[in-house]
Every structure is written in structure tokens, then in C-alpha cells.
């Protein structure tokens, strides 16, 4: 007979002097206040195929307008990043070509690019059955060995409906460094189908209940001010009482939550590219949804009508927003009507159609592929000894890794930020590369992770549209960090 213990008492007794101390509490509060800037930065590491990303969300935005699915009928990476860019990085693309064949559908891991910390992967599903797939087909669920840092793009279906191709970016993944095997598992091929239903919901009461007009005081901030994004973020996500929530569908639950009016047409936010009336629906599922679950339903308001004139407005853009990287519960649907800019019109409008996206399972099956990804970086890691200190923090950059995907800086850190309103030490690292043709290209710190005394900063290059640019590393002449030359292509360095 085993002795019996109360684990709670044992832990609390053995660790009774372990407390969240005042210093740690202050540090947490300071970092909380500094949070939104960092959160916003992370999206810059999203590749070209994922350009339609909510600016403050690490999740992926699927846009139904059709513009998001520009199909290029070229194999592998060129489907997502284009032939021109692929030319620069072609020597670094490794062919994987590992497959799992089940029930007339074959999953093939095609190719990868990897450096010490980052990887890009293309994989596809080949339909060998009688019936070709049509638009809206996708894989039901993922299970993989790098999902915490992976970012998935919307899939591309071939013209003949026989091949469905995915692109995945993984940033800061040390599995590569450790030489670990990658494992990709997938379950079920599903098809999204849109189902339209008529509704009759006046917008006036919902609008009055939440007063969701972006007030003009925010216009004093520059367009990319974190305060403006925080405000919009709150408009999108704040919780409301049950009495103010209109149930559109019971099982699974879909609700019409509130009516917002964004009057600032300068916003470049993909949620509200033109401003105007925006209607928000929600699927408040308890599931940790990755956007591909086959039993998940979300609806968006697709049509409104002016009761004074009978004029019908169709949403110029509807989107579903979800966050696979953190813990956003359920998902949000937004419908935008950019013609409606005056709050005085809203009491005379009613929602008249809702469109649901539902999933049908086409092939119920699991696939699994194990494969290796090699680090194909041609430039050896560069050892550095650069120290920077600011705002109570200090870092020592010890190593720089250069690859076609960007630059990764690693090193040690001490201290904690004193003033949360000031930029962190990582913001103050300015990396530039001088090309052989004389041009100077700045890097942007896209992602920083740190443990207690170490850090890793990923720096990438973006073009004018904030799309990821892959480096033509053969043409780099020199690299500078905060004005100090740290690398040169010439052997004298």
C-alpha cells in the first residue's frame, strides 16, 4: 500500500519561500505596457504569400474577396514567392520529396530552405481519385513538430484540381540546429462551402449599445501609432454581455456581436482598408482552432439593406480572423461596407443576409511524413563581441548567422528595462548591408526571443510593401551593426 500525500500541501510546504517578488512583478508590468509595439513587429516576418495579415495579429487573415488567392502555376516555392525571387535562392532549396500515400491521396513534402534558425517548407497533396478537387479544398487538421513557431499560408489548388500546395514558414526554430527530424502529420481533406441565409437584424441598437465609433482623438497619432492599433484591437475583441449578443446559429454557436464605424480612411489596416461600417461576428468555440478544423462554422454578414430606400449593400470584403500562435478563443468574422461612413445612417440599416463557411469532409484519413532538413547556409557563423546598453538593459552580441532568409543575432543579456515607454535595447540594434553595387539595405528586427540571460534577434529585409525579401548573399559586400563593420565579403576582414 502506497503512503498517501496531499500534493498541494507538499509543494506549498517545500516551496513555501518561493514567491512572485516585487522586482518580478514590476518587470511584468513594465513589459505589459511595452507590449503592443513588439506584437506589431512580429508580422513583418510573414512571407509574401501571407501578405494579408492583420497588422497586430500573428494569425492569418483569409479574405474572401478573391484577391488573396493569386495563383501562379509554377511548382514549389515559385508558386508562393515568384520566379524572380526564387532565382536568388535556388541554390539553397533542398529537395525533400518524401511522401505518404493513403486512400488515393498522397502527401508529399517537396522542398525546404533552412538556415540555423529558420526554415521554409513546401508540401502538397496529390489527388489520384476519380473526382478532382475544387476551390475551397483544404487539409482538415495539422499536427507537426514545429507548430509553435510555424506560419501556414492559404493553400494553392492546381488548375486541374489534382494538387493542393502549402507553404510554411518557421522562424527561430532550433530543431534545425540540433539536427532533429521534422515530422508532418495531416488529417482529412475537407471542402469549404458557403451557405447563405436570410436574416432581419436592425443595426441601430447594436451600434448604440457599444458606441463603436473610432473617436477623432486617435487621429492625433500617426497612422501606425500603437495607440491607434490598440484601440482598433479593442474594438475588435472586447467582450460584451450576453444580452447584447445576437445568436445567429446555435450549434455550433455563431453570434452577431457588434457594429463598428471606422471613419479614418487613412488606415492601411487590412481589417479596415477603407474604413466604413464594419460588422463583427464571432464563433466562440472553446477549441484551439488552427483555421482548418472540419467541424467549425463561422458566419459573416454579407448583405445589409437601407429600410428608407430599400437599397441593398453587399459587403465589399468579408474576412475570418483567428490567431493560431497564441490563445485567442474562437474566431472573428468581419464584414465591411465602405460606402457607409455616416453614423446617422446606421439606425436605418438592417442586416439581411449572413453567409456561413461550413466544412465537408472529402477524405477521412491520416498522413505522416518524417524528413530531415539541412542547414544550407554558405556563410559560416561569425563570432562577434559587441556590447550595447540602454534603459537598464545590456546585451552582448556573440554570434551572427547570415542566410538568404536574413540575419540572426545571438548573445547574452543582463538587466531589465527601466522605463517601459522607451524602446527596448533590441530596437536600437541597427543592421545594414552594403551591396557590391553600392546600395545600402537596412534590416528590420522582425522577432526577438530571450530567456533569462540569452537572446536571439531575427533581422529581415522588407520591400516597400512590407513583403519579405530574400537576400542575394553572393552580392553582399559588407554588413554593419550600429555603424560598425562586422562582416566583409573580402578575405581581409
Amino acid at each position, binding site marked *: 500500500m502506497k*503512503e498517501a500525500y496531499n500534493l498541494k500541501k507538499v509543494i506549498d510546504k517545500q516551496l513555501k519561500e518561493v514567491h512572485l517578488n516585487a522586482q518580478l512583478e514590476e518587470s511584468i508590468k513594465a513589459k505589459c505596457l511595452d507590449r503592443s509595439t513588439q506584437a506589431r513587429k512580429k508580422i513583418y516576418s510573414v512571407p509574401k504569400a501571407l501578405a494579408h495579415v492583420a497588422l497586430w495579429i500573428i494569425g492569418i487573415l483569409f479574405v474572401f474577396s478573391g484577391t488573396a488567392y493569386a495563383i501562379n502555376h509554377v511548382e514549389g516555392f515559385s508558386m508562393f514567392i515568384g520566379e524572380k525571387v526564387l532565382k536568388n535562392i535556388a541554390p539553397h532549396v533542398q529537395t525533400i520529396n518524401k511522401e505518404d500515400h493513403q486512400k488515393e491521396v498522397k502527401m508529399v513534402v517537396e522542398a525546404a530552405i533552412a538556415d540555423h534558425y529558420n526554415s521554409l517548407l513546401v508540401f502538397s497533396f496529390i489527388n489520384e481519385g476519380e473526382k478532382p478537387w475544387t476551390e475551397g479544398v483544404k487539409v482538415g487538421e495539422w499536427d507537426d513538430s514545429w507548430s509553435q513557431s510555424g506560419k501556414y499560408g492559404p493553400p494553392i489548388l492546381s488548375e486541374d484540381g489534382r494538387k493542393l500546395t502549402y507553404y510554411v514558414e518557421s522562424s527561430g526554430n532550433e530543431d534545425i540546429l540540433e539536427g532533429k527530424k521534422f515530422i508532418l502529420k495531416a488529417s482529412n481533406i475537407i471542402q469549404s462551402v458557403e451557405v447563405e441565409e436570410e436574416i432581419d437584424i436592425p443595426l441601430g441598437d447594436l451600434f448604440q449599445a457599444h458606441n463603436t465609433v473610432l473617436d477623432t482623438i486617435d487621429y492625433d497619432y500617426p497612422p501606425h501609432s500603437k495607440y491607434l492599433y490598440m*484601440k482598433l484591437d479593442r474594438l475588435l475583441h472586447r467582450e460584451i454581455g450576453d444580452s447584447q449578443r445576437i445568436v445567429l446559429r446555435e450549434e455550433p454557436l455563431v453570434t452577431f456581436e457588434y457594429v463598428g464605424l471606422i471613419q479614418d480612411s487613412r488606415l492601411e489596416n487590412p481589417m479596415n482598408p477603407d474604413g466604413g461600417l464594419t460588422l463583427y461576428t464571432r464563433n466562440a468555440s472553446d477549441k484551439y482552432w488552427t483555421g482548418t478544423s472540419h467541424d467549425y462554422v463561422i458566419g459573416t454578414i454579407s448583405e445589409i439593406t437601407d429600410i428608407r430606400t430599400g437599397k441593398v449593400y453587399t459587403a465589399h470584403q468579408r474576412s475570418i480572423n483567428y490567431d493560431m500562435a497564441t490563445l485567442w478563443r474562437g474566431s472573428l468574422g468581419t464584414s465591411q461596407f465602405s460606402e457607409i461612413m455616416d453614423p446617422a445612417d446606421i439606425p436605418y440599416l438592417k442586416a439581411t443576409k449572413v453567409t456561413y463557411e461550413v466544412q465537408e469532409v472529402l477524405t477521412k484519413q491520416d498522413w505522416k511524413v518524417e524528413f530531415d532538413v539541412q542547414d544550407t547556409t554558405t556563410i559560416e557563423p561569425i563570432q562577434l563581441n559587441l556590447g550595447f546598453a540602454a534603459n537598464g538593459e545590456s546585451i552582448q552580441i556573440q554570434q551572427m548567422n547570415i542566410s538568404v532568409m536574413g540575419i540572426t543575432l545571438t548573445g547574452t543579456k543582463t538587466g531589465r528595462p527601466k522605463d517601459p515607454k522607451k524602446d527596448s535595447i533590441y530596437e536600437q540594434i541597427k543592421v545594414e548591408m552594403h551591396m557590391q553595387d553600392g546600395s545600402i539595405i537596412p534590416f528590420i528586427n522582425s522577432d526577438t526571443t530571450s530567456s533569462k540571460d540569452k537572446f536571439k534577434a531575427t533581422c529581415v529585409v522588407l520591400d516597400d510593401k512590407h513583403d519579405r525579401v530574400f537576400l542575394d548573399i553572393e552580392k553582399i559586400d559588407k554588413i554593419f551593426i550600429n555603424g560598425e563593420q562586422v562582416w566583409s565579403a573580402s578575405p581581409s576582414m
Partner: protein
Amino acid sequence: MESIIEIEQQEIVEIERMMREYGDSLLRMCIIYLKDRALAEDAVQETFIKVYQKYYTFNQISEEKTWIMRIAINVCKNYMRTSWFKRVKTGLDLETISKERIDQNFIERERQKQILSEIAELERKYKEVILLYYYQEMSTKEIASILHIKEGTVRVRLQRARQKLSVQLEEGEKL
């Protein structure tokens, strides 16, 4: 409409409350989970930052504690994936974690330390259900929601975890 500054202040007040309410037990759980006090402090810090960041998305239908534990478990899992963690971590060293002399029978104290070491050395999937069930006193339903697994799976894992321990664990106040 509230200003951003006012909203920030309210949320910081809420974070302070949550730190008071859950901070110590979260830190202790993370120590057992990660077997390292410094890493556990970082994990707790990251957990509360995520709580702050997602505070306004928190739906009251979900229990606050469940929500926070879900974040904490995911943060710990992330830490365990890093090569730094894998290189450094060996075992739970209560002597370095707990400097204070504990006035209790030596044999009993050693026994309790052994229990914690046994739990710390469990496979992750067993360790997390044990910590959530017996230490955080959460129901199997809540744990299923936190770990995104079926309630039956939670029960099976609890059963298997108990079999691996040299002692029997008493049910807490929840039952």
C-alpha cells in the same frame, strides 16, 4: 469612451490582482514543470504578459484560472522545446530552489522532496495533468480544455501517472 491610458491602467490593476491571486502557485508549478527557478520566473513573466496582451479577448464564459493555466502550460511547453532547456536541464534541485531551512522531520522532508522529484521527472504529458489536477485543483474537464485533449484522455493520463509514483496522492478540496 474610455481613453487608452485609462484602459491600460485598469488592465494593469487587473494584472496586479491576478499576480497576487495566482502568481505564487503558478511560479511553484512552473518550477516543478521546468525544474529550474530562473526559467520558471521567466515563464511566469511571459504568462502574465500574454494574459495582459489577451486580456480584452478573455471571455467570461471561460474560467479565469483555466485561461491563465492554459497560457502557462503552453509557455512551459515552448520553453521545453528550446535547445537551451534541453542542454541545461538535468533534475529538480530543491536545495538551490529552497534556501530556507524547513523545520520538519528530516526523513519526512526527504520523502517530500523525493515526491516532487518524481513528479518533476515524469513525462511531460503525465506531469502536467498531475500538477493541474492535484496542485491547481482543477477538474478533469478543465484540464481537458487547457490541454486540448479529451476528458477521458486526462483520466487515463492521471491513472498512468499515479502508477508511476511511489506514493499515493490525496484528492484536494475540489472533490
